Every structure is written in structure tokens, then in C-alpha cells.
């Protein structure tokens, strides 16, 4: 099919030139090389850490599918779960007796800024918000991630095995998010979750209108926000049409003009094509409802709402439209759109059929204790008549975020065939005294509370005068 012809002209110039003269050409003409867009120019190089087959026995297992197995066992081979149940046996295998301990899927945080707003929070590393234009769909969070952020290690000690790093919320379109495996690596590619779909960060409400309104440029109101999204989607729709037409014409043997490449619209087009998932910072009920309709207007799915403080007001609409909602248990009051918090928000959203309620962190501190964050919701909801148990609450920080990230077939639950992402807890994980003792990613131990060999230290912290070192003093 391809007719190879070298051109001395840059393709864009060629495109303009030939577009004037050759658009009416017929099929018989010679075809230029087809232009395709590389959708994965920074591919994952992640490899699981050294792992060995393991049998964990006698644990209280929360599967992430709504089930609980008392004195449960799980068999892991080649990084995958191969068996789960009770009274499992296997020969010549490393066996962990987890009597009195609890086992859950690896914890997933759908909303994190680790690496893009790292610790220490110095200006040099403040890379999370490209707040120079309201639509920066062309920026990718993975280009900002500092893999040496010490917060990755503390999050791992809290059982976090997978996390999505998002750009900030200054813009209507903040850019692409990236889903990472929480393993130490010198490169961001070395952390990228293989084959995870990209996310696109959007933001409703106060933040974009404050950032740009303060500069006397659009948007300065919520209606300005909405106009900004619609303008962008309308342009992206044309962009997609141009590329679809190009591909179709080329397939038909024509030699069509190559549409001009636009990185911003590449991302938006990916959303319309269903390849990139929306992650929308959106607090308020009326705004989430608008964003759902906006998706319908431009034929994409409105995705997951983040920080959905008012999700409980429209729990039925959210479930009906298959939107996941990521929420905090108790953050509120820091701005007007966070004023109507209720402590049972997650539970109210969760109670509707086909819902997808998520507990997220948005914090390098609370990401270390998403189990406790989910626990707060569970107990407050129980006090107010919700029949929720541990096996239900665990889904908010495992299976449901996996679904929001498009990774349900790989992680988020303990089922045969899934990646062996596991956390072994010293007790019921929904206790303030709970601690992750061992953490596994793809069957490989990445953290052990009692074995320093499995406690990674970032380059930044290595060699810093330690609190355990004696401090020299001149007498």
C-alpha cells in the first residue's frame, strides 16, 4: 500500500502545497507515506521486581469483589493469583502464615500528585500545574514526575501499589495523567503501569475561573468555564473528523492532505475515541450534571468525578450515567464548593445500584492511610443506618479505583488471573492502629515493615544526616 517517496519539503509545507493542487485527485494518484500518530511515544519499561511464588495462608481476606474469606489462602505464581480459597496447598513454595492478619488487594489511589508536587516542596519541583492557558491538554503529567519523591516510599508503606498522577486543577483541561506502579525507579517510564489508558484531567468550578479571571482573561465565571470546554471539544471534534477523513481516504487509495498535527487536540481526540479517560475535578452537583451532558453533546464519556463533595445530592444520576466518583471522607470548608460536605458521602453514592464510589487522597499525607480514610466513611455510615462491612468498604480503595483507571482486568481485586497486588495488614485495616506489614506488586515483595531489605529509600533521603546517627559535637 505504501508508496515510498522522499520529500525534501517538510511535511506540513508539502501538505499545504498539495492540498491546494491535489485535493481533487482521483484514486489513481500516487500515495505519500501514510502519516500515523504514535500514541505511545514514552512507553512503559516497568518490570516487576524479583519475585517468588508464594502461598499465603490463614488470613482474613477481603477480595475487593465484595467477599470476605475467613482463614483464607491465596496462591501466587509468576506474579499472578492462581488460586484463592481455603485449605490450599502447594509443594516447595514459600509460605506465609497470616494467622490473625488481614489480606487485601493492593491499594489504589486514583488522585495523587506525588512526583509532580513532591517533597520537599521546593519551587524547583513545583511541576503540577501548567497554569499558563486554560486548555493545556497537550501537557503530560509523566513529563513532570520526579521519581525520587520520598512520598512514593511512604505511600508504599501504606499499601499503595498503583496510583494515578494527575496535573493540577488550575486549568479547564490540565493535561494527561499517568498511572504508575508504586515501585522505585530512576525513570518515570520504569514506573508506568503497562498498557494503562491515559487520563485527561479536567477541572470545574472555582479554580479555573479564579486563576484566569484574576488575570482578566477567560474564563472568569462558571459559564465561561463551560464555554471554554465546549469550544475546545468543538475544535477537537473537527480535528478528529479531519484525521478520520484522512485515514479513510488513504485507506481508499487516495492521497489526502495530512491534517496539521495538534498536541492539544491529540489528547481530546483520544477521549472522543474512548482511549483516554476523563478525570474531572468537580465538586458540585449542578456542575457534575452539566459535565455529564457536555460529554453527551460531544460524544465522549464524562468519566470519573474527583473531589465530588456534593455527589450524594445526585447519586442516582451518577450511577445511571456510569460515572465513578472519587471522594474524601471529611475534607471540607477550604472553599465554597467544599462547603456542603457530609461524612457519609461515599456511602450514599455507593448505595445506588451500578455505582462506583471511590475514596481518594489528593495528599502525600493521607495517601499513606487510604485504609483509614475508607474506615472513617464506613463507621460513620454504619452509625447512620448503612449496612456496610469491611468487604464493601475495601472496594472504595481497590476495585472501584481500578475501574475508574480502566484496569479492572488487571488489578483491584483478588481473583484468579489478576496481578498479585497484595497488602498484608497486621489487623483489620479499618483501624487507626492498622499497619501494612508486607506489600506485593505483581507477586514481588516491595515492602516489609520488619525487613529493611524491603524498605526503599529515595536518592534524596540517602546520605542525609539521619536521626539515628550520633551528632558530632566539639567539646
Amino acid at each position, binding site marked *: 500500500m505504501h508508496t515510498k517517496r522522499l520529500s525534501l519539503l517538510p511535511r506540513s509545507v508539502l501538505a499545504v502545497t498539495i492540498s491546494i493542487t491535489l485535493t481533487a485527485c482521483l484514486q489513481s494518484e500516487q500515495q505519500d507515506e501514510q502519516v500515523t500518530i504514535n500514541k505511545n511515544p514514552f512507553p512503559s519499561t516497568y518490570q516487576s521486581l524479583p519475585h517468588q511464588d508464594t502461598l499465603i495462608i490463614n488470613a482474613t481476606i477481603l477480595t475487593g469483589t465484595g467477599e470476605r474469606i475467613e482463614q483464607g489462602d491465596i496462591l501466587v505464581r509468576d506474579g499472578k493469583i492462581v488460586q484463592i480459597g481455603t485449605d490450599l496447598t502447594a509443594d516447595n513454595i514459600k509460605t506465609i502464615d497470616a494467622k490473625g492478619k488481614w489480606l487485601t488487594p493492593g491499594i489504589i489511589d486514583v488522585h495523587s500528585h506525588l512526583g509532580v508536587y513532591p517533597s520537599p516542596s*521546593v519551587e524547583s519541583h513545583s511541576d503540577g500545574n501548567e497554569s499558563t492557558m486554560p486548555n493545556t491538554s497537550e501537557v503530560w503529567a509523566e513529563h513532570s514526575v520526579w521519581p525520587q519523591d520520598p512520598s512514593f516510599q511512604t505511600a508504599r508503606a501504606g499499601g499503595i501499589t498503583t496510583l494515578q498522577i494527575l496535573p493540577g486543577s488550575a486549568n479547564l483541561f490540565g493535561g494527561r495523567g499517568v498511572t504508575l506502579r508504586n515501585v522505585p525507579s530512576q525513570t518515570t517510564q520504569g514506573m508506568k503501569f503497562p498498557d494503562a489508558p491515559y487520563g485527561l484531567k479536567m477541572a470545574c468550578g472555582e479554580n479555573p475561573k479564579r486563576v484566569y479571571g484574576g488575570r482578566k482573561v477567560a474564563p472568569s465565571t462558571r459559564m465561561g468555564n463551560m464555554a471554554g470546554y465546549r469550544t475546545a471539544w468543538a475544535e477537537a471534534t473537527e480535528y478528529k473528523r479531519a484525521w478520520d477523513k484522512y485515514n479513510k481516504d488513504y485507506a481508499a487509495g487516495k492521497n489526502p492532505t495530512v491534517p496539521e498535527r495538534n498536541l492539544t487536540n491529540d489528547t481530546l481526540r483520544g477521549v472522543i475515541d474512548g482511549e483516554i479517560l476523563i478525570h474531572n475535578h468537580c465538586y458540585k452537583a449542578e456542575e457534575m450534571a452539566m459535565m455529564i451532558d457536555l460529554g453527551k453533546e460531544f460524544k465522549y464519556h464524562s468519566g470519573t468525578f474527583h473531589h465530588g463533595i456534593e455527589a450524594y445530592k445526585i447519586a442516582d444520576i451518577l450511577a445511571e450515567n456510569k460515572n465513578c466518583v472519587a471522594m474524601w471522607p*471529611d475534607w471540607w470548608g*477550604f472553599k465554597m464548593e467544599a462547603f456542603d460536605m457530609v461524612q457519609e458521602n461515599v456511602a450514599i453514592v455507593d448505595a445506588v445500584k451500578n455505582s462506583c464510589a471511590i475514596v481518594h487522597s489528593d495528599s502525600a*499525607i493521607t495517601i499513606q492511610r487510604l485504609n483509614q480514610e475508607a474506615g472513617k466513611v464506613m463507621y460513620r455510615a454504619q452509625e447512620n443506618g448503612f449496612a456496610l462491612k469491611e468487604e464493601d468498604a475495601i472496594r472504595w480503595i481497590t476495585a472501584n479505583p481500578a475501574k475508574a483507571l480502566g484496569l479492572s482486568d488487571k488489578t483491584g481485586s483478588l481473583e484468579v488471573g489478576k496481578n498479585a497486588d497484595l497488602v498484608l495488614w497486621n489487623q483489620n485495616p479499618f483501624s*487507626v*492502629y492498622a499497619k501494612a506489614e508486607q506489600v506485593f506488586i505483581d507477586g514481588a515483595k516491595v515492602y516489609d515493615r520488619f525487613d529493611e531489605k524491603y524498605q526503599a529509600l529515595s536518592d534524596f533521603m540517602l546520605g542525609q544526616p539521619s536521626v539515628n546517627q550520633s551528632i558530632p559535637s566539639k567539646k
Partner: protein
Amino acid sequence: MKLFKPFIFVFACASVSAFYTSAINAETLAITNATIHTATDQGVLTNATVIIESGKIIAVNADKAAVDKADAVFDAKGQILTPGLIGSMNQLGLVEVNAVSGTRDASDKKADITFDASIGFNPRSTVIPYTRKGGITSNIVAPRGGESIFKGKTFAVDLSGSFDSIVASNNAILVDLGAKRKGSRAYDMQQLINKLEDAQKKLDKAKKKLAKEKADKKESKEDGNKKDSKKEDEEPVDYKRDELIINAVLAGTQPLVVYADRATDILALIKLKQRFGLNLIIRGAADAVLVTDQLVKAEIPVLINSMRNLPGSFDSLHTALNSAAILTSAGVKVGLSISYPHAINDPHFLYQLRFDAGNAIANGLSKDQGLAVVTANIADMFGLNSGAIEVGKNADLVLWSADPFELSSRVVKMWIGGDEFSTQSRQDALRDRYTTKSDMPRAYTK
């Protein structure tokens, strides 16, 4: 002493009567059959009784006769009773919604050492009933000040939500030191040192002058002259407002709460305490674990955030989840506060103080110590007559469904100054509205 009179440290017990005159009644309430975590050397008392009257605890573990005499008896059925928890170093009642400028009264560009934010305190804030859910009965409110290193005065409030809930205004002076976005930490430290030195010099000079005048007077009296008798009552120096405050700091009657993280700053402050005899509390204190011996020796308490375990800056490379335990076991008096600079720094998060204590327990504190760091230790630092269950203390009490530090427990009942208060808040009303079935729009559900 006369010099410092307008700024004498107001203890809670001195001013609390003003508030409770409205609530005073002679009725006594006996809370029986409680598991009392006293936050005193008494530790935990089982199957115990507390009797409260006129807003105060009048008996702990009284005999049956005293209980029988009580006007009302409440059977705690073995549940845990603790002192009300004490928040600190936040902007409760000064900030309703952080991003709504009209609801922020904690700072002002020109605010200085004289800044008294208690004038702007709003006891009707929706944050207050919500915070009661966390078993918090009183709070040390800290303004954020302005450009000066002196951020103003802290003040103590109870969480009754009444118009007279300020228990003590002016109970400490705030200073912020350490890493700066612009400029040098050394300059700030120098400013503090200079301020103290200059004030001390002026005081010394005035003292000399006074002594000389006395001597002269004595001489002239001996001479039989009685002129200038009026002058005797006058202060020899006309001090300005800020000078009077610094004088009180130098006299040790006005505690100084200084934010400092790095060990070098903490050590410099220890020197200042020794040189000027300050009543010093250090907050932030990320590096305190490096200088525990010095802190113990200098008897300096610290206010820390137990959840702070990341190197947020080059000033805080050593803070960890077990910092509270390390400091406490070394003998440093520790209080937990949710304080800035931190991701979770505002009063809307204050209710979870008990979970911060729980995590500190999970990382090495005993349960008794975990209670003390959010009750008695804070009361000691700021001179509040609460934070412990013992005779004479304010009846600020919380009854818990189970372990107060656990995520699963809740406040069953709480008393502030002997009066019972609800933990219901606007959040509950919203939840009920949206979980109650109705054919009409939700707005009709009230």
C-alpha cells in the same frame, strides 16, 4: 509587678467565671459507672464516678452518699469518659471558608505583636459544632498575623458556640521563624533577639532610674522634704503597647510560642530562653528529635503534628510518625496540634485530632500518653483549667462509645463547663435531607 499589670497572663480559671455565670446552676450531676481516663497520674479508673457542679468537677470516685445526694445521675454503663480534647494552633472561629476572603479574620498584612484576633472570633461558625464530633471542648486559636515575625496573640475558647465562649484572650504571643521564601532566617532570629535585648535594656535602665529616684527620695525624706509625693505612683517609663507585651514575655508571665523546625533554630531558641528566662513553647519542631536532651534540660514543651513524616522542606528531614513517641519517652512535654505549614492545616480538620493521637499511639505512644498530648499537656502549656479529670477542673468531659482514638468510636455525650452539648451539625442535616425519601424536591425536607 505593677509594670506588667495590664498584660498579666489571664488564666482560664480567672475569666471562665464570666462565661459560666449564665450557665451556673446549683444542680449536681453524677456520672456513674464510667471507665475514666483521667489524663492525670491516676491513669484509668474503672467503674468510677465523677460529680460535677457549677461547671466544675467536684468529686472523682466519690462515695455512694455523695452520688445519692446528686440532683441527677447518669449511668455511663462502663463507657469511656475522658477530659474534653483541646485543639490548638488553628483558626477556629476566625475562618469560615478559607477561599472566601470575607470570612477570613486570622491575618492582616500589618498585624504585629499587638494583634488580638479574639475580637474577630465568631462562635457561630459552622466549624464549631462539627468539631465537637471529635470530642473537642476547647481550643487555643492562633492567628496567622501578617508580615511581622510576631503573628499576634493566641486566645482560648470553649466549643459551646455561645457569644461568651472566649475563655482567655491574650494567652501567648506567636512568633514564626525558620525557612523563608524571601530573605534569611538569620534576619528573623536577629529581629527577635534584638527586640528582647532592647526591651531588657530599657527595663534595666528604668529599674536603675527607679532605684536612683528611690534613693534620692529617701535622701530627701531624710532631709525632711516631702515634695514630689505624686511622682511616686507614676511609672518611670511610658511604655508603648508592643513594649508592654515584650516586657511581659521577659517577665515570663506571657508565654512565647515560636514556630521553628530546624535544629539550629531550636537550639538558638533554647539559648534565648536561658538568657531571658522566657516561658517558651516551640511548635512545628520537626527536628526536635535531634535535640531531645537539650529540650528536656531547658524544660521546653513542643507542639507538633503527629502525621508529619515527609521532608516537606530542608528544615524537616527528620520528622517521622514516631516523633511524638521519641520526644515523650525522652521526657519532652508534647502537645499535638494540627498546625501550619502543612497540607492539612485549617480548623475544618481539627475534629480529627483524636485520630492523630491514635496514629501517634500506633507509632509508639501509650494510650495514656496519647490522651495527654491532646488534653493535659496542652492545658499545662496554656494555663487552661481543663484537660484532666480531677477535682477543681472545668467539667469538660466526653463520653465515648469505645476507644476514643479509634475510627470506629464516636462521641456519645459531651459536657462543656458542666453543660451538655450536642455533636449535631449542618453536615447531619444535609445527610438527612438527602437520605430521606420524599415526593417533593429536597428543599422541602428540613
